[in-house]
């Protein structure tokens, strides 16, 4: 069977996509994807700056963007330190929830009996508000870093479990038959079929979990944050609230949001690297 014409078309496609004028492509991409959000942001920032000014709102009730920037610049070392600590806590919390979440899911999915016995409790645990258990965590682990990491882990753990389990259990029936036909063992099926086909689900779980772990770290810091430059964003916010330093609270909140977005983008990048070659969610769309 001659495939030469198909081959030629394929080659042509590759070369033409390389040849395409980069500058023009960037211009179109900028117009399509970035121009709208940038304009929206400028309008939003302008309104935020002018409305409090017009109605004479004091900065300790509702600070303007310039107040927030001033607060961030003047207390920069405090903010940077707080961000660093929160990053460390949430990254460790996230990694723990990813690793433990995936391992627990694999164990649960390896046996229907284990899954049926334990999964209902996992769901009940998931519904427990983490804010309510945080003080218990402090009692068990002592105020400070460890307790905060545990809270970040707890909040990020369940999305990983529920997504991974759903992925491991939604393997195509015929694929499963195919593996049975080749006498694949239970663990061969797990490693070569169930885990790879669950990857899109696992990645979706990790994306949810990574931003939640930052929320978890900040909540943990509210409850278990200690001073002495080890408090993180949550602790900085509680202290600023007592001091009615509203501008700095805004700066901390925005820093937290920036952190969340960067964390999400990072996990998204990893996800695209893993799924890029085969899964629709991560593939570049053809024009």
């Amino acid at each position, binding site marked *: 069977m001659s*495939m030469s014409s198909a081959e030629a078309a394929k080659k042509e496609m590759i070369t033409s996509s390389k040849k395409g004028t980069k500058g023009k492509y960037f211009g179109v991409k900028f117009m399509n994807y970035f121009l709208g959000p940038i304009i929206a942001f400028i309008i939003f920032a302008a309104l935020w700056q002018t409305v409090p000014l017009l109605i004479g709102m004091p900065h300790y009730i509702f600070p303007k963007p310039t107040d927030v920037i001033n607060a961030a610049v003047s207390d920069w070392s405090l903010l940077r330190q707080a961000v660093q600590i929160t990053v460390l806590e949430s990254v460790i919390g996230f990694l723990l929830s990813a690793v433990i979440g995936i391992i627990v899911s694999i164990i649960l999915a390896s046996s229907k009996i284990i899954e049926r016995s334990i999964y209902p409790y996992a769901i009940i645990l998931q519904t427990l508000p983490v804010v309510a258990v945080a003080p218990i965590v402090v009692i068990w682990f002592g105020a400070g870093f460890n307790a905060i990491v545990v809270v970040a882990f707890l909040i990020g753990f369940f999305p990983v479990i529920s997504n991974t389990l759903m992925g491991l259990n939604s393997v195509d029936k015929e694929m499963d*038959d195919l593996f*049975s*036909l*080749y006498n*694949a063992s239970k663990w061969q099926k797990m490693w*070569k079929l169930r885990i790879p086909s669950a990857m899109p689900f696992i990645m979706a779980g990790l994306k949810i979990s990574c931003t939640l772990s930052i929320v978890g770290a900040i909540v943990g810091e509210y409850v278990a944050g200690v001073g002495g430059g080890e408090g993180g964003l949550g602790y900085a916010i509680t202290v600023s609230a007592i001091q009615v330093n509203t501008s700095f609270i805004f700066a901390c909140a925005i820093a937290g949001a920036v952190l969340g977005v960067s964390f999400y983008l990072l996990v998204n990048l990893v996800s695209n690297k893993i799924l890029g*070659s*085969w899964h629709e969610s991560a593939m570049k769309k053809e024009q």
Partner: protein
Amino acid sequence: MVIKKIPKAKVLEWMAGCRTKGDFDLKEGHLLQTNKKEMVAFRQMSKVFSNGTVALDQFDLTIGEGEFLTFLGPSGCGKSTALRMTAGLAEASSGEVKVFNKDPKETIRNTNDIAFVFQEPNLLPWRKVIDNVVLPLELRGTSKKEAKAEACRVLEMVGLKDYATSYPRELSGGMKMRVSIARALAAKPKLLLMDEPFAALDEMTRQSLQLELLEIWEKEKTTILFVTHNVFEAVYLSTRIAVMSAGPGRLSSVIDVNLPYPRHAISRTDQEFSAYVKKASDQLENSLDKRGIG
């Protein structure tokens, strides 16, 4: 793909030279099976699903080594179920199915003798073409080098050697099905089960794949059990057609197709070919009439 019309006498002469050994003999221009070894046997096999549906009822059929047998029937006649049971993927409610005189599950446990091609190509999208083809060998613990060499051989056979490092999503429907067939062949099966593998393909692709499949069948001497609801396909491919009726699934008749191979020499408008198509269609219609349909 160029299909040449070769005079029948020439075909017979050619065939006399190349297809007289094994379990086949050439007689008056037709391939007839002689002293064939029993490969698959359905004995009084019934299958009732848990919801009470009778998929197969008292199904009796023996398939010999080297045959190309096609199950032809309307949807719901249990032809796919029969195939799945042959692969050990479903259990008989009563009666039995034997492959090489053994329970299919036992055959699967110990050998690579049974392969299955589904209607969907069912390729692992995260694996490149070659890694998909290697899969059956990999699962059996064949050495990587050996497995790759075998994968290259079968990919060449289906004309996809140049696409070994492509991902399945980069292939067309027909190419994906070729990979699926290559994967089934990689394990050098003695019995190849195919469940409407070409049903989702366009007519041109289907015809070229049918031809390729026949070439592979003749070369590899694999026994093939093929499921289809397409009468033309059944006549074109098979040595025998098992016509089935639905509700409950029963074997209504068996047609021996005494057309010579290779069949690319046969025009699909040939008188003899048409006669078989008519016969198979009539049988199929009869089986529908029995149910009060049609």
